[in-house]
């Protein structure tokens, strides 16, 4: 528990995390404002699917900040050395960090969902789709999983640029994983494509239909698998 509190303190003092929080709120609400006046069954949910940029930054920065080398005048060290001296059990350290990321991502997802849905309902009035608790839970789940996905990939790579680039490019309107679905239907089972099924009804021309519950299972499997892989690599590797 103390380790989780320490990780939360670290996250809270990173300027990038505050930037990530701002992005998490601004991006989906901004897209919702630009799309105002266009009704549809997925209005609001679609914006939240594209607006995950904030939690991606959160997950990446939580890890990459540990690996950043300080300037020579600040000793040229890395945060990670200090962290592992304080919490020598690597699994416990990683679990505490993932826990802290979840503790930040969940309230952010709630806030972003509430703000986006409020905008959709104010701009569309009675033409907006009715709120559905299951889909809203899906949004929060998708955002939290995306943060953990970014977290696990960054642990594996020990540098933030590659996961940040790949994941951000993939939040584009026509994502790379979506393009891959035209090549093979297996691409519908990528974590983002499957996870979106928790709350977005139709994706493109829908070659494969995945029910929301299966989407949840597929994305959970990806996240769990990558976290286990990250933990396994992290415990074996020289920090």
């Amino acid at each position, binding site marked *: 528990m103390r380790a989780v509190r320490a990780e939360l303190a670290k996250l809270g003092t990173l300027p*990038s995390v505050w*930037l990530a929080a701002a992005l998490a709120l601004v991006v989906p609400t901004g*897209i919702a404002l630009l799309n105002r006046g266009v009704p549809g069954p997925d209005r609001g949910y679609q914006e939240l699917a594209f607006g995950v940029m904030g939690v991606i930054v959160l997950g990446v920065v939580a890890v990459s900040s540990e690996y950043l080398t300080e300037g020579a005048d600040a000793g040229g060290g890395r945060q990670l050395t200090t962290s592992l001296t304080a919490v020598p059990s690597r699994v416990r350290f990683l679990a505490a960090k993932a826990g802290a990321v979840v503790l930040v991502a969940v309230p952010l997802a709630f806030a972003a969902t509430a703000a986006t849905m409020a905008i959709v309902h104010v701009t569309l009035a009675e033409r907006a789709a009715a709120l559905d608790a299951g889909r809203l839970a899906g949004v929060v789940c998708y955002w939290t999983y995306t943060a953990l996905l970014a977290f696990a990939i960054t642990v594996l790579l020990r540098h933030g640029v590659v996961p*940040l*680039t790949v994941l951000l*490019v993939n939040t584009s309107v026509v994502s790379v994983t979506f393009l891959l679905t035209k090549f093979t239907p297996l691409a519908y089972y990528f974590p983002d494509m499957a996870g979106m099924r928790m709350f977005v009804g139709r994706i493109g021309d829908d070659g494969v239909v995945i029910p929301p519950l299966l989407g949840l299972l597929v994305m959970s499997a990806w996240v769990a698998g990558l976290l286990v892989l990250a933990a396994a690599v992290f415990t074996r590797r020289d920090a």
Partner: protein
Amino acid sequence: MIRAELSKLASLPATWTTLAWTLAANVLLTFVIAVGDTPVAYSRAGFIVFGVLATCSEYTGGQIRTTLTVMPRRVRQLAAKHAALAVVTLPAALAVALSGPSITLAVLGTPVDFWQVAEVTAYLTLLTLVSAAVGVLLRHTLAGVGLLLGCLFVAAPFLHEYLPDDMVTLVVSTPVLLIVAAVFHRRRDA
């Protein structure tokens, strides 16, 4: 001066890995979608990373202090850096711009539109220079990459109707950002 900047750029492993991965991703995506110019939309990410890395790598260690001791005229130093960057980027951008159409030529027999290849090459080179200027302003690799990718891949598709053509935006913003970067670089404490 340009030669010094070139040797710094060429000795960064990140330069070669970024450009190689961008080309590889571009070729792969061409096969996947089999449309000449769409993969370039994604390959822009690689050039953004390259441009930001080129200037931000000075700030990860203490390289910038050595650089400015040797070349105290800051605007000239920055100009040399951008010139060196352009020298490296131009052939890489040409390779990426050519890879898509030449694959479609080999597979489908569609003739290569050289005017379009030239336009894509210019676009990618300017984009790299803009990224380098943003890197100078932010002095932080992740922040620069995040900001630019956020603008291009997240915000731009939704702001499309409010913005002029991509190329026009870029041609206008390149000199503006280069000048702003030079002014900040000159006045700010390194």
